[in-house]
């Protein structure tokens, strides 16, 4: 399990990158993070929305209420053009940290 600080710091790149794969809503996003991280990253459900709303306020994502197949309405989030740019910056920074650690620990670094 990640520490609280790391969860907070990584939520932005994770959310943006998930939405880069297409629009999604809160519940689905949490499921996806849980699944992709093999349970290592566990977001508490109620805390996700403040983060999403903040990204929206910063103009990195947009949202829209839409009817799902089940007939229920859900609030869908999708990436804005600014968000798409922000991913590049995030990617650069996280890979820089990652690659430095890999070198220190003598693991093969991820390709960029």
């Amino acid at each position, binding site marked *: 399990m990640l520490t609280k600080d790391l969860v907070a710091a990584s939520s932005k790149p994770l959310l943006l990158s998930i939405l880069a794969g297409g629009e999604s809503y*809160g*519940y689905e996003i949490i499921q996806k993070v849980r699944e992709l991280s093999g349970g290592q990253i566990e977001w508490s*459900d*109620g805390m996700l929305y*403040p983060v999403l709303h903040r990204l929206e306020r910063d103009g990195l994502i947009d949202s829209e209420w839409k009817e799902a197949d089940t007939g229920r309405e859900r609030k869908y989030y999708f990436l804005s053009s600014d968000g798409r*740019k922000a991913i590049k910056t995030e990617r650069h920074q996280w890979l820089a940290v990652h690659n430095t650690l890999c070198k220190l620990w003598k693991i093969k670094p991820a390709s960029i």
Partner: protein
Amino acid sequence: MENQTRFDLNAAIDNWRNELAAQPNLAPDDRRELETHLRDAIARFQQQGLNDEESFCLARHRVGQPQQIGEEFVKANTAAVGANVPSGGIFMNFNLYKDFLAAPLELRVFAIFSLVVTILGLALPILGPKHLLEYIIPFTGWNPALGYMSGLIMSFSIIYIYAKFPPLLLPSDKQSMAHRALHHLYTKSVTWLLRLGLIAPLAVQIVFGLLYDDKLPDNNFGNPYLTVSPWRPVWTVLIPALWIAILLMAPQNRRTPKRA
């Protein structure tokens, strides 16, 4: 179904909704979103074979205590509001120096260039050596600093208006969808206005530079102010055009001038 007679799922959700509604920090839109989340989680647990009561309890636990959720939303909102809290002084709630430092390099260089040109353009003809204008005007035209001065004034006005009338962020705990949409539009339009405010005066300067070059006479009728150097387009056309190109290519990593 045995379980449903003992446990009324809809009543439980209603109760939960009321508890959530008691939180002053949650906007109706936030509550609606949280409820769709709770229902999604319940449906998922039901699919996994849990009964209504178990599904509800687990989902409720997952979403978190209403009070705790309310506090988290406050944290997120105060962080946003904090950016808009007035810092006092005549600049109201924007810090020119801080925003200047956070701007892209191209924009900063352009701001300094504009400022220098404007000050020189205004001060030198008055304070500088005699007949200075006679020497400058053949190369720069009548208004050497016009485009830059207008750009400075226009962008400053836009920033000032934006700071004076910030978007509908302040009552953030009571934001509705319409508020957010309006806020988004407002922020976007300010950004575009600013770009226009910087680039339009330069474009006007270029247009004038091109127009006047065609019309000016070959000789100066003995008037030094009518002399046109063949190098004049460097100042009136080439340099403004270069600035426009540079400003258009500058990274737009800041949505508005006031957010650091």
